[in-house]
């Protein structure tokens, strides 16, 4: 459990550091002091800048909190998908689950419906994300296996269909909704607010708890459907449960931050290289690692260029796309072809 401890410490340090960096610099001691004061403890210094406390609680903390939730959700969803597809290349943005969830979210943004209040976007993203995951799952499996080439081609087809629908939503949108959609499509934590965080939180929590409960059975599933069944796994039920959990996690992360690609590919892969393939460690460690990665990526997105908030999806793809290509080549070599 050293890895979990290490990642937890890294996450806490990064949360404090990231919250202090920006146009208005706030040193870590003042951040801890500000948190202590909110908790009713008169410990540590308060931010000396008059706007410091305000900037922390109105802008920085919700943004960092959303980064944590989105990163944990995406990395866990990636690890779950790889387990259920039995394929290290399965990932929400690669196979089109993220863009599928984005279809529901963009339709809600464009039409402005709010039938479930604060949760409307997240629920819509969950529903279309679920539909997409079910579709990809049924299309990419042949006789109990998912070949790499089938998975990647299915991803291309599903992604292009989803982007057609998103384009349509962008086309019918009015000017302000269109601007919102364009930036959101590129992936950004710019719109992070406390209501967004509270809308995402329950989805992420339920998803993470469920993933840990599924871990043991996912280990068995890597033996193949038949052998897993012989060891007492209800394979069909497990697959369906994992698909719903993936849709929950992806829906939650896409709803307010758009499509942030490759987090679910890079993080579980690195964790597997360090800690081995067992899901009982892989899933919680991926959640922490994903949170760390997205905090760092978001920090880069908003500080690389002065006074500019770059799309975070651009940053993760810059790292993730070459990584994906490397992994694709390696899997191909190992399997001796495109099978």
């Amino acid at each position, binding site marked *: 459990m050293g890895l979990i401890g290490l990642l937890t410490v890294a996450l806490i340090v990064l949360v404090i550091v990231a919250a202090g960096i920006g146009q208005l610099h706030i040193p870590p001691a003042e951040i801890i002091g500000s948190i202590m004061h909110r908790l009713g403890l008169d410990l540590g210094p308060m931010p000396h800048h008059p706007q410091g406390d305000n900037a922390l609680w109105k802008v920085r903390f919700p943004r960092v909190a959303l980064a944590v939730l989105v990163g944990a959700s995406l990395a866990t969803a990636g690890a779950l998908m790889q387990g259920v597809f*039995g*394929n*290290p290349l399965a990932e929400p943005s690669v196979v089109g689950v993220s863009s599928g969830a984005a279809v529901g979210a963009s339709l809600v943004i464009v039409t402005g419906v709010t039938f479930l209040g604060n949760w409307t976007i997240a629920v819509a993203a969950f529903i279309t994300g679920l539909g997409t995951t079910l579709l990809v799952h049924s299309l990419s499996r042949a006789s109990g296996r998912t070949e790499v080439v089938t998975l990647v081609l299915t991803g291309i087809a599903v992604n292009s269909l989803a982007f057609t629908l998103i384009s349509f939503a962008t086309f019918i949108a009015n000017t302000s909704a269109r601007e919102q959609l364009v930036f959101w499509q590129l992936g950004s934590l710019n719109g992070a607010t406390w209501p967004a965080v509270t809308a995402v939180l329950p989805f992420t929590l339920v998803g993470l708890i469920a993933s840990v409960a599924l871990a*043991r059975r996912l*280990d*068995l599933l*890597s*033996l*193949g459907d*038949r*052998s897993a*069944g*012989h*060891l*007492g*796994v*209800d394979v069909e039920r497990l697959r369906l449960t994992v698909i719903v959990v993936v849709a929950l996690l992806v829906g939650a992360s896409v709803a307010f931050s758009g499509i942030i690609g490759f987090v679910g590919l890079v993080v579980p892969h690195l964790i*597997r290289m360090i800690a*081995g*393939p*067992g899901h009982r460690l892989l899933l919680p460690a991926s959640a922490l690692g994903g949170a760390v990665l997205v905090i760092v990526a978001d920090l880069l997105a908003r500080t690389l260029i002065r006074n500019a908030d770059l799309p975070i999806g651009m940053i993760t793809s810059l790292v993730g796309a070459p990584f994906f290509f490397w992994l694709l080549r390696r899997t191909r070599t190992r399997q001796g072809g495109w099978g």
Partner: protein
Amino acid sequence: MRRQIPARLPIGTTIAEAREVSLELGGTPILDGVSLSVRTGEVLALVGPNGAGKSTLLSVLSGDHAPDRGEVFLGGEPLPHWSPVETAMRRAVMLQQATISFPFSVADIVAMGRSPWYGTPRAEDDENAVRAALETADITEFRERVFSSLSGGERARVSLARALAQEAQLLFLDEPTAALDLHHQEAVLQLARESAAADDAVVVVVHDLNLAAGYADRVAVLSHGKIVADGNPRNVLTAELLTEVYRHPVEVWPHPATGAPVILPRR
């Protein structure tokens, strides 16, 4: 969840049974009215030519395929009576081909065989069962190695160890010896004999008729989805029957020392 830990059945009890089972796959009839009972304390060999339905019969008995007609029983109850975990507590399966999607170690894979007992009092035996299974399958020396780095024969022994670690009273082995050298072939069948002597029931699909003749208490011969003979190897494995079933002249002699049938195709 209702989870009844099975009591061990006494020797000679019918632990699994197929009654008038028929199954079509993709429009082709594979099994045609097959009835077979499996008893504790017995090694039962399923033999027959390619495509006769041996592996399919095994998969119907183990619950992978529901038959189109007929019924399958396990531990005195129809198979659907049990939950997947309850079924796994009663029977273990070793498949012909084992694959794994992630780089688990041999020890991890064998330990997966213990999963039906997770959360039950028998989980206390996990460590001993895994160690014993590794030793029995002769793979203790590469317990830390990654499955994908093993040869075909070594992989087969890992799958066998996983099935053994499950400690079910009924063991299905689907061509366990196909990838093995002579020593390990004999060792696997010897192991089947020892398990049967400890009141387990072992059903093994083999192509090598001499292995069946030398180790099985009972042999069932399948041909075109039907059981054409079922009984003591000396009575069942005759030149006449084998010549007809395999469509190749076959000679059978009694072994000078043991009297077990020795089978050779005429060359």
